[in-house]
């Protein structure tokens, strides 16, 4: 009979244990939220610092994205041109375009015939009747052009090899104009390539440094807040509270800082980005793709910021309480 009773007793004990754990869990949350509300000045200060931290993280990420887009645009604008004879036919142009597209280092190719080049000049100088008159008079000596966008502007070796080895290119290449990546402009392109790479590395390093510094600031703020309440912790220990009961409310408080700060900083960040988009555009800075991205995924951005804030808060609180929780 006792053998039958034992499992029932165990199940009851387990049920009671679980109920107690659940009760403790809710109490920890209540203590955390109460502390947040009742230590209002401390909470406002910590939330403000957390907001600044998240804003720095947001700005770093957005800047990094804008920088990448802008540099990408710049890369696309770098002219990798192969100049062909004026008489080159559209058929040859299209054949060469197809051949070039097969190269792994080539992202896109555009063929501009001599006629199109002349039309382009006419369009660009539409206001100047003298230029238009001269264009009408003169024989078209503009070269046909293959405008090539490469994956990496620092590496044109495959393209150079193609130009040197392809028979169709050899037969049609313009003897008066060397390809831009092989002639005098080669160095200019390489310099731009190096600058773009450097800017990207600097941007990434700056973003990482900003994130680290801002995380240290919030860590220090939370540490100070907990230092102010070390006697409370001491007292809780003496009464017999276990570590999780003491630490829990501090973690909850930090999560609340993170959640509120996430909303505020995302709001400020998005507002500032929208506000400055026209100015950025006037400086040839490509902000629109980033704005579009954020607009499309606003809920995801906020959730991401909330998680980042909560994570920074939890880690800071955990580390800050650790020294006071030793037995």
């Amino acid at each position, binding site marked *: 009979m006792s053998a039958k009773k034992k499992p029932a007793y165990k199940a009851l004990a387990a049920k009671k244990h679980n109920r107690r754990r659940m*009760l403790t869990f809710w109490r920890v949350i209540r203590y955390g939220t109460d502390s947040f509300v009742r230590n209002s000045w401390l909470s406002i200060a910590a939330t403000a610092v957390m907001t600044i931290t998240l804003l720095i993280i947001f700005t770093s990420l957005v800047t990094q994205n804008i920088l990448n887009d802008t540099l990408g645009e710049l890369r696309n604008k770098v002219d990798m041109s192969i100049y062909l004879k004026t008489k080159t036919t559209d058929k040859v142009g299209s054949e060469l375009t197809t051949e070039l597209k097969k190269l792994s280092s080539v992202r896109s190719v555009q063929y501009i015939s001599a006629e199109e080049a002349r039309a382009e000049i006419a369009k660009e100088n539409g206001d100047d009747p003298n230029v238009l008159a001269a264009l009408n008079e003169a024989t078209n000596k503009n070269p046909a052009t293959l405008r090539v966008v490469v994956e990496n502007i620092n590496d044109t070796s495959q393209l150079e090899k193609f130009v040197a080895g392809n028979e169709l290119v050899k037969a049609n290449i313009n003897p008066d104009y060397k390809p831009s990546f092989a002639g005098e402009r080669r160095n200019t392109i390489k310099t731009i390539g190096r600058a773009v790479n450097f800017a990207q590395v600097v941007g990434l390093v700056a973003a990482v440094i900003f994130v680290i510094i801002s995380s240290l600031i919030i860590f220090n703020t939370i540490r100070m807040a907990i230092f102010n309440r070390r006697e409370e912790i*001491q007292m809780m220990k*003496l009464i017999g509270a276990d570590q999780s009961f003491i630490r829990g409310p501090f973690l909850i408080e930090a999560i609340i800082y993170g959640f509120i700060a996430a909303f505020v900083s995302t709001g400020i960040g998005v507002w500032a980005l929208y506000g400055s988009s026209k100015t950025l555009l006037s400086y040839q800075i490509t902000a629109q793709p980033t704005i579009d991205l954020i607009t499309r995924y606003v809920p995801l951005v906020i959730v991401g910021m909330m998680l980042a804030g909560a994570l920074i808060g939890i880690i800071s609180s955990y580390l800050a309480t650790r020294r006071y929780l030793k037995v």
Partner: protein
Amino acid sequence: MILLDRVTKTYTKSSRPALDRVSLFIEPREFVILVGTSGAGKSTLFKLLTREEKPTSGKIVVGGIDYDTLKDKNIPLLRRKIGVVSQDFKLLPQRTVFENIAFALEIAGMTHREIKSTVPKVIELVGLSGKEKHFPHQLAGGERQRVAIARAVVRQPKILIADEPTGNLDPRHSWDIIRLLEKINKYGTTVLLTTHNAEIVNKLKRRVITLDHGKISGDQAVGSYRQ
């Protein structure tokens, strides 16, 4: 029951021991007054009892728990069996009287219903009825100490350690607190009291243990204050 067998506590190797081979036996339900000058070892003794410190050597057994075999994870459970009251009250400043006392029960996982029925009784015992919703800063020193005592005894501990509980109080409030401790002792709790107040020691006519430079220099069944 509290048993200390040749307990020594040395903080740094170069300094003299804060407690030097102290042996002591305190019966259940006793009311013991511990006296001694500052630095005599009273606080160290209390820290050893609450397991805030470990002895350098010697044996401590409290309420049947041998501290040598006590695991770190069980220390909170031990502390729940010992009530502690200190000179500076150590209340949670952002919590009301009710919440401060309830805290001691909440950490032990007691239900809301149990807390609601227990706390008012203890508030009444310490004479703070009507002040349940006050915050510590709204109370006088004596009242704060009553809250601290209520919090210490609400779980009905076997032992109550009162470390200079009257140190910050005027004579009238000091006696209120002492009377309260006597009442708690009468209900069956062992009380360990430290005080520098000679009048209290002399009038109480209880067992007095005198500590001097980490050693027991006197243990009188009905003692008086000696410096």
